[in-house]
């Protein structure tokens, strides 16, 4: 058993971290203040990442991507997790689901995304359907050789900067023994399609500048060539291509927790009260001890799940455990950080309150903690049941 990263992985980590620290950290305060990353700035970040050959690192080399394995890509996500998502979104990691494109779609969607010429966003969530993706209310009705979409999506991350959306909609119902089941189908919808509108979403406490949008489809007509995969195959391709993306949330949580920890440890070692550094008081020192222990645990859980994916081992339960534990760890770590910093942990001149706010959404998106626990419990019961 070898826990060491190989030299390429070390260099990847060092490069991404150095880039994040010197190119992105200095921009964060302004993003927090304005809640906006001007598109020119985004394009600038994109250009720098492209020049580094680090754009689309998750996409296989045959499509022009970086071709990283799951473990190395998870390390990239971990280091990116240190910086504001409003900035790191420009470090393009196109959705893996685009690898399900047919040859013609690859030319129009996958390759331009890998080249940074187009940006994708993923549209599943609706007011009435989140993790319960089978119950989407957005429908697509066949009309001749076209499909006509109606309905709406919300909480669609970075749709504001996207050129097209990967949209899931119900295309009918099948009668099954358990009652009627919706047929879910995936579509690629270009930004300028008539009847498709992207509107600003909700202002939220987490990740200022990383916007969510409301998408609405009003008799939005697209040719059959816009269907990704076959009709009724939506959930299958979702499961095939997206089940590992939860791991990126775990990895980003670990990276951010390490950044928070370093700031907190430094503060605890230098801020003096009653004649000594506050870290020497057990109440503070033990917080640091808990933080680093849990960060390491989350880190290894995440890397081990990524490693299992690379070995083609079963990883669904492991990914759920990593996502659950890493995001809940980040919640505790950032809360402890605020406590150690005291009042300074809550002022907006310091980044601590931001990390605390940002941490909250990690337990919610890409499957809530409850969904992850459900996945874990179901896997255990399947293994031990009859």
């Amino acid at each position, binding site marked *: 058993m070898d826990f060491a990263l190989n*030299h*390429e992985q*070390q*260099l*990847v980590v*060092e*490069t991404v971290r*150095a*880039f994040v620290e010197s190119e992105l950290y200095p921009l964060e305060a302004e993003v927090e203040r304005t809640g906006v990353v001007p598109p020119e700035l985004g394009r600038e970040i994109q250009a720098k990442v492209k*020049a*580094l*050959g*680090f754009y689309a*690192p998750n996409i296989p080399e045959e499509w022009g991507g*970086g071709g990283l394995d799951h473990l190395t890509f998870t390390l990239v996500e971990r280091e990116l997790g240190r910086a504001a998502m409003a900035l790191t979104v420009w470090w393009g990691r196109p959705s893996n689901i685009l690898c399900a494109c047919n040859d013609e779609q690859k030319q129009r969607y996958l390759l331009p995304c890998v080249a940074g010429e187009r940006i994708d966003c993923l549209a599943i969530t609706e007011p009435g359907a989140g993790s319960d993706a089978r119950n989407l209310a957005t429908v697509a009705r066949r009309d001749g050789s076209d499909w006509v979409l109606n309905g709406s999506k919300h909480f669609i991350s970075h749709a504001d900067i996207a050129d097209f959306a990967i949209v899931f909609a119900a295309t009918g119902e099948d009668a099954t023994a358990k009652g009627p089941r919706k047929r879910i189908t995936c579509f690629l919808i270009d930004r300028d399609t008539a009847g498709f509108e992207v509107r600003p979403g909700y202002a939220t406490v987490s990740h200022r500048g990383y916007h969510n949008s409301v998408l609405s489809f009003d008799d939005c007509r697209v040719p059959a060539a816009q269907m990704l995969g076959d009709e009724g195959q939506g959930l299958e391709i979702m499961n095939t291509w997206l089940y590992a993306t939860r791991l990126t949330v775990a990895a980003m949580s670990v990276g951010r927790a390490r950044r928070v920890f370093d700031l907190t440890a430094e503060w605890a070692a230098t801020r003096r009260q009653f004649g000594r550094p506050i870290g020497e008081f057990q109440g503070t020192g033990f917080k640091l001890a808990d933080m680093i222990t849990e960060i390491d645990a989350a880190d290894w859980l995440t890397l081990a799940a990524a490693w299992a994916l690379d070995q083609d081992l079963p990883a669904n339960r492991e990914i759920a455990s990593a996502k659950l534990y890493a995001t809940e760890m980040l919640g505790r770590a950032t809360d402890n950080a605020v406590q150690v910093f005291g009042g300074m942990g809550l002022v907006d001149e310091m980044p601590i309150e931001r990390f605390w706010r940002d941490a909250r959404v990690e337990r919610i998106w890409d499957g809530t903690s409850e969904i992850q626990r459900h996945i874990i419990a179901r896997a255990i019961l399947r293994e031990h049941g009859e």
Partner: protein
Amino acid sequence: MKVLVPVKRVIDANVKVRVKADQTGVELTNVKMAMNPFCEIAVEEAVRMKEAGTATEVIVVSAGAQQAQETIRTGLAMGADRGILILSEASLEPLAVAKLLKAVVEKESADMVLMGKQAIDGDNNQTGQMLAALLGWPQGTFVSKIEKADGGLKVTREVDGGLENVALKLPAVVTVDLRLNQPRYASLPNIMKAKKKQIDTMTPEDLGVDASPRLTVLKVVEPPARKAGVKVADVAELIDKLKNEAKVI
């Protein structure tokens, strides 16, 4: 032009260095190591020379323990062509390193040695100068600008009083200062390519060099902690102290 770039594996510049309890040196166990920042600048300059067509081959060489190979790979990931590791588990003094480098320069028929002005661990600032002397080559030290000139180089040196421009004939040794360039990040394709680039390993014996130490370290201690200052009541007391205690006015 074949450019040789010596690089050194040192404690990472961001690590707080601690002296070993037995005072024989600094703690290296479980400490993050990295390429000496001045060496990084030298590699960057050599790679830029290659990109500009002035250098034909960039060879990164390091003398030290097996792990120095990682430092060489870092240089290869920045764009150097191949590496040479001079394997020595014993610690090497600047003169020994200069002798080893001389042997490599001759073996490789290098046209230029581009290296950091000093390493941030020993802060000796000797190896480049010693190497130039041993080779009988001209040297340009503390360089913040390098230009190709007819049959040689024009370099700008950062000296106490300002900037000094010097013309050097090739072959030459050039040691680089902080402001020469901003080293690049290793690109993903170069990181992946570095794995496949060749690194030759040799020992001081292979090069016919006696690398045994000439110096004895008596002890290594932490710098003394800075004492707290004193408060003075008024300007008169300050002037009195400066005159009579500190004796500076």
